[in-house]
């Protein structure tokens, strides 16, 4: 009898442990999430956050840092294999850096587009709802970000497609943002969406549409990625150029010569690019000298996505494409005059001088340098090179002028790589996408 009682005791305890249900209090289940209007704002906020995150955070500075490395804005001082190879113009789809850049950019696009579709579906006033307008704006920006930096577009598990797909989608989302934000009376979103659409049209080669949109954006307008030191939205360009681990230097780039030497060792220079040579310091590779950027001053420094000044340069470039090089120079000087009228405090007493050109080739050189200075470290340079490499008459464009190597301590051991030597001016879609996506072959075909 006592044994049977023990047996019953054991079975009773076992029965008490039979409940296999568990809950995870720190996660939100996807079930019903996208059907709950009360969570709509959080979904849109997530999309906003993710665009900024993809631009500036993953793998040592996001696609902005990657584009800066692959173009001529930054030089790697890191010993990290991925950063070194990308800096040498040989990005690979299997590097962890490539994986993280692509993953963040792809998720930012998916999240923003999903937020837009969800907001449209759940909002009682989808044609004038600020959430719809905001989601549409960031869906456009996310597509622009991917199109600017990656070699291909991949939409929702589809095949590899040309990046024009990203820009065409961006035009669509910016258009939606303009319409809804106009109805909602959200002027800043309307202006930003015009600026974003101008950027996308420019990359598609639709110059007249680009110039038309650019006209809606005042020169002093700036739409930024907001960063703080207490969120996931951080300015990692600062962290890895001035923080504890300096993966990047301005040494070896033309900007080190074009900009202002903060130490005063070299007079002159463009005040939009301020650099700080550290003559006694080398990067983590113990080899390349450190010249630090001083544009960003901390992880909370915001980064421009759309600027009115770029709109003026879009108009100037449209003139160049049309063969009106003199009008382009006039536009650039008009911009400089406008910038001099309201100089930031970092300029001190420095001002921009007027520029000139004797022919179309020189005018292109001026524009290339002007865009470089005005949009330095804002994630635009790589897309600029890709566009310039495809404009009519590219062979006449003196790229080498803007890629002239800086003095190296040992040039034979450390030859700088010209954009002529870069196989492709874009970041590859990651191997993880190619392996996971049934519509893409293993070799990326």
């Amino acid at each position, binding site marked *: 009898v006592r044994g049977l009682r023990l047996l019953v005791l054991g079975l009773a305890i076992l029965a008490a442990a039979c409940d296999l249900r568990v809950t995870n209090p720190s*996660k939100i289940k996807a079930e019903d999430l996208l059907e709950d209007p009360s969570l709509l704002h959080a979904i849109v906020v997530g999309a906003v956050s993710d665009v900024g995150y993809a631009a500036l955070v993953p793998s040592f500075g996001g696609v902005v840092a990657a584009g800066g490395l692959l173009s001529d804005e930054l030089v790697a001082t890191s010993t990290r294999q991925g950063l070194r190879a990308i800096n040498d113009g040989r990005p690979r789809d299997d590097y962890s850096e490539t994986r993280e850049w692509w993953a963040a950019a792809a998720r930012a696009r998916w999240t923003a587009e*999903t937020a837009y579709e969800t907001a449209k579906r759940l909002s009682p006033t989808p044609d004038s709802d600020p959430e719809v307008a905001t989601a549409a704006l960031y869906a456009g920006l996310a597509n622009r970000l991917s199109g600017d930096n990656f070699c291909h577009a991949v939409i929702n598990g589809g095949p590899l497609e040309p990046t024009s797909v990203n820009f065409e989608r961006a035009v669509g989302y910016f258009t939606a943002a303009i319409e809804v934000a106009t109805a909602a009376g959200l002027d800043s979103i309307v202006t930003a969406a015009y600026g974003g659409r101008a950027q996308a049209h420019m990359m598609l080669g639709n110059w007249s549409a680009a110039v038309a949109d650019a006209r809606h954006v005042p020169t002093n307008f700036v739409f930024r990625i907001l960063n703080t030191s207490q969120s996931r939205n951080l300015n990692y360009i600062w962290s890895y150029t001035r923080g504890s681990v300096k993966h990047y230097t301005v040494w070896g780039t033309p900007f080190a010569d074009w900009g202002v030497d903060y130490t005063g060792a070299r007079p002159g220079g463009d005040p939009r690019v301020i650099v700080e040579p550290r003559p006694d310091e080398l990067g983590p590779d113990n080899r390349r000298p450190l010249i630090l950027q001083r544009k960003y001053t901390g992880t909370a420094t915001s980064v421009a996505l759309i600027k009115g000044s770029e709109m003026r340069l879009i108009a100037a470039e449209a003139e160049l494409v049309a063969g009106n090089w003199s009008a382009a120079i006039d536009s650039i000087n008009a911009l400089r005059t406008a910038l001099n009228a309201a100089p930031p405090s970092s300029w001190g007493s420095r001002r921009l001088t007027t520029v000139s050109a004797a022919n179309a080739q020189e005018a292109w050189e001026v524009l290339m340098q002007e865009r470089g200075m005005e949009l330095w470290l804002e994630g635009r340079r790589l897309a600029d090179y890709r566009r310039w490499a495809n404009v009519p008459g590219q062979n006449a464009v003196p790229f080498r002028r803007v890629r002239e190597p800086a003095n190296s301590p040992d040039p034979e051991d450390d030859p700088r790589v010209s954009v002529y030597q870069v196989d492709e001016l874009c970041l590859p879609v990651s191997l993880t996408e190619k392996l996971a996506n049934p519509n893409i072959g293993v070799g990326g075909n």
Partner: protein
Amino acid sequence: MHAEGFAASGIRMRARRLTRSIRLLALIGFGGITWAASPLAAQAPAPGTIVGQVVSAVTGEGVRGAEIMVLGTTRTAFSATDGAYRVSGLAPGSYEVRARAIGFEEAVHRIEVQANQTVALPFRLTPSPLPLEEIEAIGVRGGVAQHRLGAVTAVIRPAEVPPVGVHTLSELLQARLPGLQVTPQGGKPGQGSRILSRGVRGMSGRTTPLVIVDGVRIHNSPETGLRRGVDGDYDFGGEAWSGLDDISIDDIDRIEVLPGPAAAALYGSEGANGVLNIVTKRGVGDRHEVRVRGGYGFANAPAAWWSASPHGEWYYDEFVRSGMESSAYLSVRGGVDRFQYYAGATVRSAKGVLPQTGQDYWSVRANMRAEPMQAVAIEIFTGFSNREIDLPYDAGSLWGLTRNALIGGDSGLTVTPAEILTYDVGLLSRRFTAGMRLENSLFRGFTHSLTLGSDIFDCDNTDFNPFGTNVREGGKKINYRRDVTLLSLDYRANYTRAFGSVKATTTVGAQGMRRDQAYTLALGYNFAGPGLSVVEVAGVTDGDQNREAERMMGGYVQETINLRDRLFVTAGVRVDGYSNHGRSARYQTYPLFNASWVLPRMDRLRGVDAVRLRGAYGVAGQTPDVYLTERTWNVVDSVHNGSPGLLTGKVGAPDLAPERVRELEGGLDMSLFGERLTLGVTYYDQRTEDALVLLQAAPSLGFPEPQVMNGGETGNRGIELTAHARILAGTAVRWNVHGGLFTNRQRVTSIARGKPVHLGGAQWIREGHPVGGFFADNGDYIGPAFPVRTIQFGSDLQLGERIGLVALFDHAGGHFLQSNTLIDLMQAGDPISNPVNDLRDFVFPADYWRLRELSLSYQLPPGALRILGLRAGRLAIGGRNLWRSQEYDGLEAEAYSDPKQPLLNQTWFNTPLPRQVVLGIEATF
């Protein structure tokens, strides 16, 4: 979040959990005891006693440590040094009494016990050439002799390994069995290990076996103690941790090893990686024994081991130092009548060969067994351990001392070595394990037991960079805590019947498990000035927390047929359910079948003493981690309107099932030439279906986080060979040698998506190749990442009665290692414009040989023992890892870097395993 509030809430939470657990155990224990005991108290008859001596039938000498069990009761005794034993408190009646001891065939006698009388029952045991260790882990209370099991099992007894030089359970397991490979992350005290049993199964890298201590499951997650933060966001230096090493080997009587599913099928969804069933010490017989042990030793890593870098010699001169280790152990064990006890305490301290590395450890254990009445026994096991480990950033960390110093010399790479020495990174882990077992014999042939257990573990990690450091100019403090409560119960019942020469044993069992984990993190940045070090006084603070829960229940039934003590056939099935499985796969069934045939003695085959043929088939599972079935979104901070945002998390696998490993093995054991040579050969063949693999969902679909899915099949087969030879067997010199060989050939037979999986670096999962195999950039196969063979051989030389010399060599080979060490060193050197073009150049053969153990011991003579008042005494000097040979020219071939990704056989700047020399003394009173 303020640190005080954070700490207080954590303490309160742990206290509540501890109190709850103790209450539960006390309630169940009290209720069970009183309920079961109530009908017996009034009818206790005047008891009788059995006494006797267990002797060898060949030599006539007493057999020490023989177990004498009165069948049909819970009464058990152990023989003393001269073989004498005593079992008291038996109700009058007829009993079958069984005696068994290692190396002897068991014997059963029937005897009549009268009230108030003492009856004599001597045993003469016949030596057996077959493996006779008792294995409890296969479900039968009291254990089953190995030779009756068709599946390979093994037993490791700490008392039989060299008396000095083995400090931790990980070290105890190293090179002890063919097929059981223990790879430390590096050579710093307190670092954890990767355990492989019969190679890598599946594709997930989850290789840790299930660990059970006295019937209580313990938490031994492969997650690191130091590295993993909430959602993996925070790194604490990337150091591995092994829960196994919380258990003092001084307290262990034996470890039963079930290497794979063929033996461990009864453990169902947790048995695929095998089982380590740890049995701690008990009281012995009706005597009391006090044992003390002490050891002191040194460690070093010579200058040549750092020569991969041009800064190696400087690094050795500046930073590498002599390590130190000391240990002490005190135990008391014994018994009176119906009560037996064991209490032990261990203290250990180690200083590593690198600055700021070391470990302080102490543990206490108390075990008791009481038999309040003839058919009821109660056992209580309790153990507490405390480990404080200094594990600064190392391996591939940007802030690691070795990495910075070997790449950049005095100026470092990321930061200077001088600054790194100001960091304070460490771990404090505490574990309290308690179990209570109730045993009852309901009627003759039927026994059952219920074990209730609780394993409470908390781990407190700190990462401190003082004010003014380069990592953060204002300083940084991170405090990360992990609290785990694991409650388990285990019920098992055995019923044995005899039908002439056939015996049948039916075993029924049930298990339940509940694990709750809590992760809490506090961060502080920017101290106001130097000297501040806690989160509360940081200028910027933040916090995070997570909660996880798991539930398991399962049961099994097993039938064993014993035909004339020659043929043993077992068949069984287990069914279990696990909360981690998807709905369609929540409940799983695991069959088992095995047979062992002891051949009749074959006089015509000269030199053959005994032969046993065996075969086994079993299926066991590997359950996935918690919360992988659900598609989730995460909350993120955002600056947009000050509102939090939602972002995609895990894509989720709603039908996620445990991977299932089918194992078929067969082999034979032979004893030859008058037991001078014993051989064991086993062939095993495993097939892993629904293998768990960390797959990347297509990022363009919005869920870029890798997700564990059921992703293909792998095959794994090889041979295990063991040999023991008695070369000399005289009284002046006795010399035994032993060896083990293990081979493994693993192949991926299919991948669910049909595409290869990139693990990192040059390592891939590709069909037709081993998991984690190395490939060149052009796709050429280089070789496997895990050993295809291991060899151990050792020698045990006894000179006279007092001097012993033991040596053990260990080898692993046929595999490769990616040297991120050399990649980093090359990239920091000349020429700068030569990045890695093909990882093939940095994948090296990883074969190694080591003199794992070497010890010389001296037993004190009787005269000295008399003078000192001792029963026994021994002096010893021993060494560990005294010699190594490796082809790999990085720092250490026998290491791995990332405990979160154990399939990555890649090293950065892992500390070499140091050479250790230890002096020891032990005495028994």
